[in-house]
């Protein structure tokens, strides 16, 4: 029997048992539905992550540290026990982390494969105040990262790769609400940050001298330490965007200003001119991967924009795998459904099979007829499941985007025709494999037995 005739006969046999075919297909459809959604969600998340990174991060950007355990690399990252180092801090409560010293920074600046080397300054201000307001406020303070594009709600932000001016400052748009001043009004306003120099424990000699000259009041002034006010102009208010990677609730200052302020607030402490990491860019024409390797041999550890992307992709892939796992379980269950249905079909059509064999149909053609029927069931289930997922996903996408605050134009579920076609073909193959034993039973049927009517 020719293939086209076999396919048509198989299709007709199925359409004659509509309810049974449909129910068996539905079992596969459940698996196909889940797998299609998993594929779509995976693709959507990857595209979202990709968009997030490519629109926010300079592909040449590198984050360099002294201690590779920060990135979870190296043997020590897993054992929890590390050799003691003098230039290390354990401020986070865990094992001490090796810090970059000013010497390291100078080494990095001297390298010709790096440019725009900016240590991560630790900044903290005592309080901030605005001209014309009585109240004092506190807020997070961070260093502006020129490699990550900010979005301005009001005012302006520097273009990608450019830093803020030394007396400029960016504040989050949410401040306008707390301050009860319109965002437009805040732009251009003067904001004063007050920093405190860490107080040293005074020596007995100093105490005696102070008491002698200023009395007890002088002693309390000594305890309070020294403070310094820095006046900034608000350049803009940063937007709280879902596709922005910058911290949304911190005041941002320029790098040069940050160094001055950081040095001031850490002067005399263990953390003076020691940095957790360095933001830098691979020099023009150098691949970030090569620079990363070179840094690694120089005793530093670095992460590229691509590493960040891979990290996000790994998370997406794991989540996608979990969802796909459920789909595969559903498929395994449906395989038994196909086997059962096809066995029943063989039993029901014993005489038909007998007749076909009496008319000279080859056993392998009979088997093929049943295998094609199974393939049809797989195809139908795949189309039903994938189609339903596609339609439901497309309809739900705007709602999901809104619920998850993905931002306009972003979709969690992105359906692509090629993976879905592959999925349907795989389902047909799975169905054919499931139909193997029933088909073999049909092929081996003895026509004389099958046609016995007594």
């Amino acid at each position, binding site marked *: *029997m*020719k293939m*086209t*005739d076999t396919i048509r*006969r198989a299709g*007709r046999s199925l359409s*004659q048992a509509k309810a049974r075919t449909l129910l068996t297909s539905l079992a596969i459809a459940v698996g196909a539905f889940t797998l299609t959604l998993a594929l779509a969600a995976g693709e959507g998340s990857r595209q979202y992550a990709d968009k997030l990174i490519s629109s926010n991060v300079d592909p040449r950007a590198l984050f360099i540290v002294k201690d590779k355990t920060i990135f979870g690399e190296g043997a020590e990252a897993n054992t929890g026990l590390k050799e003691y180092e003098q230039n290390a801090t354990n401020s986070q409560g865990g094992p001490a982390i090796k810090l970059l010293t000013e010497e390291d920074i100078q080494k990095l600046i001297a390298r010709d494969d790096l440019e725009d080397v900016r240590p991560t300054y630790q900044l903290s201000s005592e309080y901030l105040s605005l001209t014309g307001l009585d109240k004092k406020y506190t807020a997070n303070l961070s260093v502006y990262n020129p490699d990550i594009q900010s979005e301005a709600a009001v005012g302006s932000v520097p273009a990608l790769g450019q830093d803020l001016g030394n007396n400029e400052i960016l504040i989050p748009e949410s401040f306008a609400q707390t301050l009860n001043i319109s965002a437009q009004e805040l732009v251009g306003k003067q904001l004063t940050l007050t920093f405190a120099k860490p107080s040293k424990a005074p020596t007995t000699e100093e105490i005696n001298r102070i008491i002698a000259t200023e009395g007890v009041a002088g002693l309390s002034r000594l305890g309070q330490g020294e403070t310094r006010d820095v006046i900034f102009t608000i350049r803009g208010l940063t937007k709280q965007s879902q596709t922005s990677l910058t911290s949304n609730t911190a005041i941002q200052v320029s790098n040069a200003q940050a160094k001055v302020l950081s040095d001031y607030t850490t002067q005399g402490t263990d953390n003076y001119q020691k940095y957790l990491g360095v933001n830098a860019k691979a020099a023009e024409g150098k691949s970030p991967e090569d620079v990363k390797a070179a840094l690694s041999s120089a005793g530093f550890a670095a992460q590229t924009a691509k590493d960040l992307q891979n990290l996000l992709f790994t998370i997406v892939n794991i989540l996608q795998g979990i969802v796909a796992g459920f789909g595969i379980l559903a498929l395994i269950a449906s395989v038994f459904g196909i086997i059962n249905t096809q066995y029943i079909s063989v039993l029901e059509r014993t*005489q*038909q099979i*007998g*007749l*076909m*064999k*009496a*008319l*000279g*149909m*080859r*056993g392998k*053609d009979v088997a093929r007829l049943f295998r094609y029927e199974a393939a049809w069931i797989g195809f139908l289930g795949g189309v039903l499941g994938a189609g339903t997922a596609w339609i439901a996903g497309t309809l739900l996408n705007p709602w999901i985007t809104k619920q998850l605050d993905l931002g306009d134009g972003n979709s969690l579920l992105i359906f692509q025709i090629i993976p879905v076609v592959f999925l349907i073909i795989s389902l047909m193959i799975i169905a054919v494999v499931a139909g193997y034993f029933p088909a073999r039973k049909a092929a081996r049927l003895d*026509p*004389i037995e099958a*046609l016995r*009517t*007594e």
Partner: protein
Amino acid sequence: MIQIQNITKTYGKKQNVFTALDDVSIDIPDGASVAIIGKSGSGKSTLMHAVSGLDRPEKGQVIIGDKDILRLKPKEVDKFRSQKMSFIFQSFFVEANENCFDNVSLPLEIAEVPTGKRRQMVLDALAAVELTDKAKSKARNLSGGQKQRLAVARAIVNKPEILFADEPTGNLDSTTGEVIEDLLFHYNKENGVTLIIVTHDPDLAAKCDIQVNVKDGRIESVIHSNKKGAA
């Protein structure tokens, strides 16, 4: 010419052995109509199965043309059946859910007749049994007589050389049964097709050129009717 030589077919093993055919020999000339008559269990159906290559007797030869079909490979026997033989059964075995056209088309599909030729062959066969107007009807909506006519159409569509009919009128009343008989004999005479009818109906057997009486796996008697001389 079909030469059946010394065929023996047994079922079961050792003590339970049952001999369905015991050293049966018979020659059937081309274009003859042959009735194989016998009671249930006499071995008449087994004889038909052996001649058609559906069954394989342990001993003997069935020579059709110049080939011993019992020595052919299964693939070749299947091909032989699909091209040169046809069957009609007591219970029709038409596919109730298929329409008449597709029922008749089945042997052509199995014999891999090109699609272009099929349509006319099917329509000719349906015309021969006067079912042209039912071509698109589902077989389940036909009466018993119509179903058997459909089975006859299916049997003659690929222009076989040998037509086997296993109790073709067994499930029909005498009037419709006669219509089927007339169709079969007419086709037998017109086209020179060898017609082998398995039956226990003496009236039907009497219409055949040769009557083979089978009892307990042996041929009891062979009667050549006077309508046509023995070969």
